[in-house]
């Protein structure tokens, strides 16, 4: 079986700075994977490399058996951005945002047809935002905003979904809703990769976890990833050193 995502020997440098070094990664369809690492550990760079926004210095990325560029043209990957990367005052409605998921299927003017409207309505229904379709995107709560972008990925019919810190600034109840939604999407054989600081949500959310610090420190079960000694390595704290700190 071909993996949904296969990354081998990926190295990305920004000038002198090494952002990722020799990253090997395999993600299977139908699973939710948590991507754990501190700020500057290379999580965003890894997303960007797989989306083709930064060019790798070395290594290869295969997405659903295709090159990253081919995968983009097929609309294989949906991306749910970090909250701070979105202009929430932008004059678009929830419906407009979700429709943007359909653009790669539309003609040169991106004029939507009946099928596209139906797909958008269905996606909004799936994330339980049907009553807010005409709201300006910034007039949603934190959790609803994230769900709107997930709906965009559903409307895109993307087999792979990347979510960058989806729980930041989201209350516990919305978090539970998003976790349930992502589990459902994985059950439909989608591949889901979620970067998060929120380790508490991890056992409910993810089938497996990746610990990243410029290189992959660990990929495997969530319970093993959450062991203090693994986390200490990932967040750069030696357990022994921690004692002297406190």
């Amino acid at each position, binding site marked *: 079986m071909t993996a949904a995502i296969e990354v081998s020997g990926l190295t990305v440098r920004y000038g002198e700075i090494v952002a990722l070094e020799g990253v090997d990664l395999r993600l299977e369809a139908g699973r939710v994977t948590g991507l754990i690492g501190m700020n500057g550990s290379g999580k965003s760079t890894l997303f960007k490399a797989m989306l083709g926004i930064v060019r790798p210095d070395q290594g290869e990325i295969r997405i659903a058996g295709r090159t990253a560029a081919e995968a983009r043209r097929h609309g294989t990957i949906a991306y749910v951005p970090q909250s701070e990367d979105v202009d929430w005052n932008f004059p678009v409605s929830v419906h407009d945002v979700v429709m943007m*998921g359909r653009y*790669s299927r539309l003609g040169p003017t991106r004029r939507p047809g009946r099928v596209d409207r139906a797909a958008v309505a269905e996606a909004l229904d799936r994330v339980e935002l049907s009553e807010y379709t005409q709201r300006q995107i910034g007039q949603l709560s934190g959790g609803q905003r994230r769900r709107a972008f997930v709906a965009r990925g559903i409307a895109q019919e993307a087999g792979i979904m990347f979510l960058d810190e989806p729980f930041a600034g989201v209350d516990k109840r919305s978090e539970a809703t998003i976790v349930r939604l992502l589990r459902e999407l994985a059950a439909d054989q989608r591949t889901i990769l979620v970067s998060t600081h929120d380790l508490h949500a991890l056992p409910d959310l993810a089938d497996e976890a990746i610990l990243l610090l410029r290189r992959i420190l660990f990929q495997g079960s969530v319970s093993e990833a959450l062991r203090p000694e693994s986390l200490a390595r990932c967040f750069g704290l030696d357990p022994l050193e921690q004692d002297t700190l406190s």
Partner: protein
Amino acid sequence: MTLLDFLLEPLSYDFMVRALVTTVVAAVVCAVLSCWLVLIGWSLLGDAVSHAVLPGVVLAYMLGLPFGVGAVIFGFLAVGLIGAIRSTSRIKEDAVIGIVFTTLFALGLVLISVVPSQTDLNHIIFGNILGISQSDQLQIGVLAAVALVLLLFKRRDLTLYAFDPVHAHAIGLSPRRLGGLLLGVLALTAVVALQVVGVILVVAMLIIPGATAYLLTDRFTRMLVIAPVLSAASSVVGIYLSYWLDAASGGLVVVTQGVTFALVHLFGPRRGLVSTYLASWSRRAVANG
């Protein structure tokens, strides 16, 4: 003098009719483009490109090429230089923009001073609404039509580019190309507007209408209607004022746009300062019984 005289007398002069038509055309194109510029945060870049096209326009005049060609080449040259200097030095972007566009603009002034010309190229700097010839009008019309068609044809892609370029890239569109399209149209539009209000005031027409419309609505499609309507109305008012006050027409058009912005910012129905103050005042009054 009756109101009818007030409105009709200027129209008895050909040059006034031409001025009105040309200004409204330029105002509409600039206003449509400005909707994207203010949302992307390209106002300063719009200022830069509209100045940087000057040497291109003068060279095009010397070589007998359409002004639009020279403008587009120098528009991209300016943006290319800004990007190149930004990435190879420690100078911050606003300073880089300032260096590049003033230098190119100055080069344009030097060229104007040495080129013997029949039409006064100085008009490009301050605009010359009242002296627009029929051939100028034709060129403005063609450029405006090209710019407007491109913008409206690609409006959904451009809005996506402005809102979420990463998503555009992720679904296989090219943010680079969309940004390039917007820059090209910006250069064309600058040529349209600079013959009307002049290089110095072009930037006003490229920012104020979009910003004003943004204060009035939460829907981009409505911005695309409100901005050109307000801009066209301001142009007509400005030109009439200039006729009756015998004052600079380009200046009055922009002053009218600025006053419109101020009125909307103060008295706009939802986000206006006065209406939000009244709303919070009445809420407090209700709360205090």
